């Protein structure tokens, strides 16, 4: 998911950048307003390009970092079936990261530059992955809630105005649905198990609920870049709209397996046809964005180590090809 603007309102919010030909800007705005797709070689305002690079690369980083909390449980999955499923899911997340890096690269930023921005701490990724996975039930909760929230956010992005991003999202959405279902299945099994297993499932829901609904990003009245992104059809729904939708579909799923959403203010509101829910602790959200999440340092260290320890493989493959090219030339 992972596609909301992270961080506090930015003084350098994308606004029209001076010096661009007004006729080109007007033609671009008209194309976007008519729901046309923008393709890599088309002219686009610099602010549109920058917003997309930031959003798509954040999204890609989140997929890649998202492999870590789940990878933590690969060797301890409770059965061979669960292990095979989790392995496939983690591999999918890696694939999703690659689709997204590719989409961002069409905007003129190299993958190495983006990865470097992640490793140097300049680029953000979804706050959700800075929470630890303490028990096996957390793997269920992540699939059910985190991937569920991701799907809610990604489905409308299949119609986002930038063609390569939209096409990457089509591919991601096709694969993502199994992620959520396998997570819910884990929760179902635990909730229907021994009292200890059920307590483990409830504990995971307690810890993941609030971070999951924070994933949709700051409330609309505190999300200054949203309006521009909506106008450019980069975003299709506001953060609050998506959050409400997620709460409305998820609460009955929790009830069905006998788990309780940890929000005493949660109540059905018949007038709006949706749930009212309690206030979100945005200070926690911003602290996690700043890198103060429980395992933020561990996550970044794991990423940097993987990159550094893989360097010899990348270099060896390049050297091998260089030798063969030289031989072909000779």
């Amino acid at each position, binding site marked *: 998911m992972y596609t909301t603007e992270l961080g506090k309102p930015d003084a350098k919010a994308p606004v029209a950048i001076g010096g661009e030909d007004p006729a080109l800007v007007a033609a671009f705005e008209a194309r976007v307003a008519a729901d046309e797709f923008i393709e890599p070689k088309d002219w686009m305002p610099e602010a549109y390009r920058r917003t997309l690079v930031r959003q798509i690369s954040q999204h890609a980083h989140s997929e890649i970092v998202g492999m870590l909390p789940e990878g933590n449980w690969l060797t301890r999955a409770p059965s061979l079936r669960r292990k095979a499923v989790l392995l496939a899911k983690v591999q999918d997340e890696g694939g999703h990261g690659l689709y997204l890096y590719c989409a961002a*690269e069409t905007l003129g930023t190299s993958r190495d530059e983006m990865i*470097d921005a992640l490793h140097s701490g300049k680029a953000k990724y979804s706050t959700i992955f800075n929470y630890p996975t303490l028990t096996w039930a957390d793997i269920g909760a992540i699939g059910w809630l985190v991937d569920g929230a991701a799907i809610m956010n990604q489905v409308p992005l299949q119609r986002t105005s930038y063609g390569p991003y939209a*096409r*990457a999202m089509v591919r991601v959405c096709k694969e993502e649905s199994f992620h959520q279902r396998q997570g819910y299945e884990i929760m179902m099994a635990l909730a229907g198990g021994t009292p200890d297993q059920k307590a483990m499932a409830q504990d995971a829901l307690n810890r993941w609920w609030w971070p999951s609904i924070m994933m949709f990003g700051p409330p609309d009245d505190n999300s200054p870049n949203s309006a521009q992104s909506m106008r450019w059809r980069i975003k299709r729904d506001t953060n609050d709209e998506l959050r409400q939708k997620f709460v409305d579909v998820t609460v009955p799923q929790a009830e069905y397996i006998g788990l309780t959403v940890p929000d005493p203010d949660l109540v059905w509101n018949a007038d709006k046809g949706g749930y009212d829910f309690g206030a979100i602790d945005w200070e926690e959200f911003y602290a996690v964005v700043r890198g103060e999440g429980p395992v933020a340092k561990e996550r970044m260290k794991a990423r940097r180590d993987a990159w550094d320890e893989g360097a010899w493989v990348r270099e060896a*493959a*390049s050297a091998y090809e260089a030798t063969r090219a030289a031989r072909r030339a000779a």
Partner: protein
Amino acid sequence: MSREWPLWEVFIRTKGGLSHRHAGSVHAPDPELAMRHARDTYTRRMEGVSLWVVRSSDIVASDPAQDGPMFEPAEGKIYRHPTFYEIPDVVKHI
């Protein structure tokens, strides 16, 4: 930072009888690894029966700024389409 692996475009034939269609891209140092990466990245669920990988730098693309002059002549020659010709309804099989 060492030199980045070049970019390759990936095309998939989803089943026999259909054309290859662009799926995305991968980074790889050589054709063999490009093929392996394309397979791992784009065909984890029986998405296809055949793969092409092409160095991105070898693709020549038309210029979107020239779309008008490039594609207009066809639009101006509607007599190239069968619906341009009016044939009475009583005439069959034409």
